[in-house]
């Protein structure tokens, strides 16, 4: 039996279209059909200047839009060979980690909803809302911030930022046990995710699975640790690696990563150096001829930005290596032989964001 899951389906979280072949309830084959929201961002960027194209990248992985912007800005800075002030570096990292936290929170709620529990979604949104408000205070937007620009950040931090972040951390720490009580320790949840959607370390490398998907299979792939950018090499945090390779391992990686993000924020929030938030840059940015590649760790995995420059004010060719795209390619491998319910659990723990896949 062949079933079309999507493009409109409650658990694909977007317009992903999966054609699944079933034998009874058992999944035989999963074939993703993409392109429902392909906007050809790569082509669009070819006609935008190096300042302008960053805003488009917010629309790729809209849950970690900030980190997308970060990757692009880093790539442009690498081409221009400019140093950015330490204050803006700290601000960028702070915002990155807040974004990661918000993204993982949303994922946590959405995963529980995929598995049929609605209530966690609202608890997750309560905390995420506070992060969004923090973002709104400083960046002026909640989701597509366009806050990071080549050379630094667009605006200085809001005066209340530090106080509010501390308030948030305090509240978040007092709430984090609820996540364990409601979902992690729940026996139904564990049965639904343990041993489901297994992918071995070798397959994870071969499929290019990164982020929590790769780390859940025991693959060390945290760009923040392996190829530190900004000030990540000066920070104390652990790369979370679980050996399970199943949905529960991926779940645990993300939940434990939230704690690590909190650790990073705690280290930085009292140590924001004074100074400029933006380096002096020319009005029109022109990258030298050549190609530049940067990688950053988004909430979903490794985002690669590949810019080919011909020396003009616009990129000649730009390619985003998005984490969701590679992770999705492993979905078929992971979900074969499972039940339909397992497919939803696997998809939930892969944390697919469809605009990130379609670009």
């Amino acid at each position, binding site marked *: *039996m062949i*079933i079309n899951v999507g493009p409109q*389906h*409650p*658990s694909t979280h977007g317009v992903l279209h999966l054609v699944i072949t079933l034998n009874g*309830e058992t999944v035989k084959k999963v074939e993703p059909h993409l392109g429902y929201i392909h906007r050809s961002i790569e082509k669009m960027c070819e006609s935008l200047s190096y300042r302008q194209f960053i805003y488009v990248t917010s629309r790729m992985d809209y849950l970690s839009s900030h980190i997308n912007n970060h990757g692009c800005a880093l790539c442009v800075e690498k081409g221009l060979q400019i140093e950015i002030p330490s204050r803006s570096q700290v601000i960028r990292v702070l915002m990155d980690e807040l974004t990661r936290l918000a993204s993982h929170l949303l994922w946590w709620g959405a995963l*529980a*909803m*995929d*598995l*049929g*529990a*609605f*209530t966690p*979604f*609202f*608890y997750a949104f*309560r905390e995420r809302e506070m992060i969004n408000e923090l973002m709104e205070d400083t960046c002026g937007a909640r989701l597509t911030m366009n806050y990071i620009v080549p050379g630094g950040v667009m605006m200085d931090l809001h005066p209340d930022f530090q106080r509010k972040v501390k308030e948030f951390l305090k509240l978040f720490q007092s709430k984090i046990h609820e996540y364990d009580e*409601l*979902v992690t320790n*729940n026996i*139904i*949840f564990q*049965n*639904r995710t343990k041993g489901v959607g297994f992918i071995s370390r070798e397959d994870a490398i071969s499929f290019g699975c990164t982020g929590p998907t790769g780390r859940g299979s025991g693959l060390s792939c945290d760009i923040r640790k392996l190829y530190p950018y900004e000030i990540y090499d000066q920070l104390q945090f652990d790369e979370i690696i679980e050996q399970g390779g199943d949905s529960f391992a991926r779940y645990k990686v993300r939940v434990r990563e939230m704690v690590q993000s909190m650790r990073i924020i705690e280290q930085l929030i009292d140590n924001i150096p004074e100074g400029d938030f933006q380096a002096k840059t020319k009005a029109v940015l022109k990258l030298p001829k050549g190609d530049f590649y940067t990688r950053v760790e988004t909430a979903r995995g490794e985002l690669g930005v590949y810019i080919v420059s011909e020396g003009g004010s616009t990129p000649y060719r730009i390619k985003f290596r998005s984490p969701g795209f590679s992770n999705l390619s492993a979905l078929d491998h992971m979900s074969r032989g499972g*039940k*339909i*319910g*397992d497919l*939803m659990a696997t998809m939930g723990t892969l944390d697919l964001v469809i605009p990130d896949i379609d670009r």
Partner: protein
Amino acid sequence: MISLEGLKTSTQIWLQNNLGEPWAFMAQSVLVGIAAITLFAVLGLALVYMERKVAALMQIRLGPNRVGPMGILQTSADTLKLVMKEGLTPDGADKFLFNLAPFLVMIAAMLILAPIAFAKNFQIWDLSIGVLYVAAISSVTVIGILMAGWSSNNKYSLLGAMRSAAQIVSYELSAGLSILAIVILTGSLRISDIINSQADGWWIIKGHIPVLIAFIVFLIAVTAETNRAPFDLAEAESELTAGFHTEYSGMKFALFFLAEYINIFIGCAIGATLFFGGWMPFHIGNWEAFNHVMDYIPSSIWFFGKTLFLIFVIMWFRWTFPRLRIDQLLNLEWKYLLPISMINLLIVTFMAIMGWHL
């Protein structure tokens, strides 16, 4: 004091005096029919409202609060919307079965209403095999669901219907076995006998451990039989969009929706009758004054209070737990609930033979 019993008796007497025996019976039947349908509508609306409020409060929300005071009229407005919507029938569907299915589900739900004692001496039909009747009719619902799933000509619907059939058929067993435990203790299938046997204390608080186990098994089985989360695999909106009623719209969908809530009500009413003594007030041994105060509360309030409490517990389940997978669902039944309830039944029988329960 107005009680449902008094209302019933005075209506009966009035009708018999004015119309004569055969016509009075006819009039009574019509009145009962109207009362049942009204009860359905009111219950459906009230339970949907209750579900939404319970869900909202557990999810740190307010819930419906715009239409009418506290949003009480919200569900009525929703029903009105559904009534006015077009009832679509898909092209490839088996039209007759497709349109019949919601009514079948509804009628099955209505039939179970007959032996339920809503208050003292207030019962449509106190038949001698009351409990057996309930157990038998409640599995008719599955035919309606299968019919809906099959005739929709939709793969989601078919999968949902098949899941639902497997689920209801298996959970019927442990529900039946846990009901049997009480039947053995009481020694009668008649609902009124079962209630009267609890005059000196409800089964659940008499302190028999097997009864407690039977109650837990029964609660799980009822949750599963009514296709409620965490056993809502037949609908499983994240997997099968809406399961067996994917293709339904308008009033036909509303009937399915209503039937779900009526089934919960009936399941919980049976649970309240068997384990919580139906309309029997709460009595504590020799505390005469306390018992009198309890007696003063109308029996219908006792019944509805207990039923609503059980419904609340089932709603609580729904808004806390994730959904099970289909094989885990069947594992739970065949590996855990069925063996437990069988051994439990054995113990209860032994208890009844030895007379320990009295």
